[in-house]
């Protein structure tokens, strides 16, 4: 239904941060003094608009509002209109992006206070917010794609924000390239839609996808899944996510934990009308999610770098969301619910980690922390909220959301459900390890480090996020979020889980408790060395090496690619160039030989002249006399 009121102006949501980015990037150094304030203001304004829009949407009868803007591409039968779609799913994302985004902008004012490139940083952040909003607000796959590439660009720019560090530059390139692999999947999916259905808008595809053959729909679903894997750091395209932590910590919090990496989940939930037609693709989604949630947890257990542990947990939590999305109509709403909760507590923890680093001269090695709870109490308390949320402590965010996913998974597919349950336990282990190494145990600080609490501008966002980590689960009251999202995700038919819901919750809590206890006995009770032990089990070594994802990529993609291109280059040099150059050389040699006839002696020329005349004469005589 067409929009009126404030919803008609929802394009402002995107335009404001975009304008902020433009001003900051084009304005140059003269915006250095107030650029960060402008950047923050645009995002806060977007948040306010988003809030009002959502209130208006909640009051409407039909919860899907389209805003038609202009013709984006018009070529033959291809007519892509740029338009926005404001529905419950977009609304949740808009609030998450602008809300968490605002907090992270505010936090960054303090965190980046001493960085000479602060204006650039805020410009990129604004660009990211604009692109991400376009991604979730677009009413067609093409609009989504534009936003998709926009966030990819912003992610690249922000990972490489400290581009003078080789590690950051390399990580940015790696993220960009691996994202492109996923983008190929999304691009092909859009091509397939256009060639088979002639449309790329959500409503158009929704209306006609039922006419497609089963194989085509499955292919479509798998291509979309490939796109989601690239953006969300899912197996097999997961290797870029841990490296992306080279960027500033607010970037890790905003882009590589709370928002951008969840775009894959958004894509799958948004395309649920496609996945509803193909159970094979759905199963693939669920399996990918399960594999990744276990891989992420495994990696999280082995790392000593606080941000890498959080990156591993991000992979793992997104794995939960993908798993939920793969469970079909039963799981879409829970995927989004967990996504929202994860956005709160993971942003909280990343910002907390940033606060810890801020107090310890940007050290990221947890073996150099210890007993920080006294030095930075606010950070400790807020981080603890996030910690309790992620392990699923009863009452906190993660308890509600993860519990729902495990419950649904168990009722839909017992194997995947048990894996998810195992993942929850491992999560308890590695997050407890992180907490113990950072805030408890003995001091292992570097000699010149004097941990101190961060300024208010950083701690206030932490407090807000901590509160959200504690209270976010309230949206599940009376199944409100599920009902709110149901126009998009569909109504799940009621099914009885194999066990009562309460029992499953109890089992999950027990499993988590086992993990926590294990961490206490293995880490908390022992002396922690300041250097990582060399002799470790195979499992730890694998986890430290990101489960050999890079080695695998090198072996399977990079090396064959190198030898293939090497062969092509040799072919080009030898055969193609050789053919051309050989022709040239032959002609050149022939000309060189013929050149010698031009010896400068006029009598030689006269001789050939006479010979030519004699030949003509001979021809004449032969023709006339014969």
């Amino acid at each position, binding site marked *: 239904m067409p929009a009126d009121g404030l919803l008609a102006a929802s394009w402002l949501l995107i335009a404001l941060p975009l304008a902020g980015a433009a001003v900051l990037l084009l304005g140059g150094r003269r915006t250095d003094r107030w650029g960060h304030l402008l950047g923050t203001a645009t995002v806060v304004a977007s948040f306010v608009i988003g809030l009002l829009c959502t209130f208006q949407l909640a009051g409407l009868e039909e919860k899907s509002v389209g805003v038609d803007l202009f013709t984006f591409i018009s070529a033959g039968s291809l007519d892509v209109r740029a338009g926005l779609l404001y529905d419950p799913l977009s609304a949740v994302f808009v609030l998450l992006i602008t809300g968490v985004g605002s907090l992270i902008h505010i936090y960054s004012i303090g965190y980046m206070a001493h960085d000479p490139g602060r204006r650039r940083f805020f410009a990129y952040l604004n660009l990211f917010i604009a692109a991400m909003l376009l991604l979730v607000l677009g009413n067609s796959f093409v609009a989504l794609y534009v936003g998709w590439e926009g966030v990819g660009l912003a992610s690249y720019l922000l990972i490489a924000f400290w581009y003078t560090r080789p590690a950051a530059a390399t990580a940015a390139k790696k993220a960009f390239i691996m994202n492109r692999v996923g983008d190929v999947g999304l691009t092909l999916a859009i091509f397939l839609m256009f060639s088979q259905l002639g449309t790329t808008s959500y409503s158009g595809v929704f209306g006609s996808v039922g006419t497609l053959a089963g194989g085509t729909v499955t292919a479509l679903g798998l291509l979309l899944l490939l796109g989601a894997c690239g953006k969300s750091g899912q197996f097999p395209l997961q290797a870029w996510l841990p490296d992306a932590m080279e960027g500033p910590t607010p970037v890790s919090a905003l882009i590589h934990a709370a928002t951008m990496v969840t775009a894959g989940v958004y894509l799958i939930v948004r395309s649920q009308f496609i996945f509803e037609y193909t159970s094979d693709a759905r199963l693939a989604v669920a399996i990918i999610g399960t594999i990744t949630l276990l891989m992420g947890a495994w990696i999280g257990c082995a790392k000593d770098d606080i941000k890498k542990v959080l990156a591993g947990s991000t992979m793992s939590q997104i794995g939960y969301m993908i798993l939920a999305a793969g469970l079909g109509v039963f799981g879409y709403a829970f995927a989004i619910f967990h996504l929202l909760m994860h956005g709160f507590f993971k942003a909280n923890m990343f910002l907390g980690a940033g606060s810890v680093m801020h107090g310890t001269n940007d050290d990221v090695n947890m073996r150099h922390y210890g007993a920080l709870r006294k030095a930075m109490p606010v950070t400790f308390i807020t981080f603890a909220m996030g910690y309790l949320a992620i392990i699923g402590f009863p009452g906190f965010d993660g308890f509600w959301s993860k519990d729902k996913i495990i419950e649904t998974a168990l009722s839909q597919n017992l194997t995947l459900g048990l894996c998810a349950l195992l993942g929850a336990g491992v999560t308890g282990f590695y997050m407890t390890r992180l907490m113990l190494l950072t805030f408890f145990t003995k001091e292992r600080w570097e000699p010149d480090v004097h941990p101190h609490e961060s300024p208010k501008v950083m701690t206030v966002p932490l407090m807000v996020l901590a509160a959200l980590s504690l209270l976010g689960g309230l949206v599940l009251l009376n199944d409100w979020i599920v009902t709110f999202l149901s126009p998009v995700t569909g109504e799940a038919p009621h099914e009885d889980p194999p066990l009562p819901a309460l029992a499953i919750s109890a089992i999950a809590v027990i499993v988590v408790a086992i993990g926590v206890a294990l961490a206490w006995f293995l880490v908390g009770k022992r002396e922690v060395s300041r250097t990582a032990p060399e002799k470790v089990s195979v499992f730890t070594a694998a986890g430290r090496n990101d489960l050999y994802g890079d080695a695998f990529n090198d072996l399977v993609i990079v090396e064959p690619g190198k030898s293939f291109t090497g062969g092509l280059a040799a072919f080009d040099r030898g055969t193609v160039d050789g053919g051309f150059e050989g022709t040239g050389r032959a002609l050149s040699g022939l000309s060189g030989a013929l*050149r*010698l006839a*031009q*010896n*400068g*002696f*006029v*009598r030689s020329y*006269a*001789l050939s002249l*006479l010979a030519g005349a004699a030949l003509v004469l001979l021809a004449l005589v032969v023709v006339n006399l014969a």
Partner: protein
Amino acid sequence: MTLTWYLVLAAILFTIGAVGVLVRRNAIVVFMCVELMLNSVNLTLVTFARAHGTVDGQIMAFFVMVVAAAEVVVGLAIIMSIYRTRRSASVDDANLLKY
């Protein structure tokens, strides 16, 4: 005897002139050989004029003479200026224009 003999004589003299151009190196002698070739062509023209009963052949021969005279004047001037700069009248010495 028929008019053919004049033509054959002219052909032989023409060839002798051509061979002279090829084997002699003194530019002036080469020029003389060219004159001989022109003259034998003239003889052919005059002979054919007589054979066909028109004066046009003689007119042609007359024009050939004029052109030959002009050519000799210019050619000898060229030989003179080459000789002045290179101290040689050999056609083989003027061989700078080559590969």
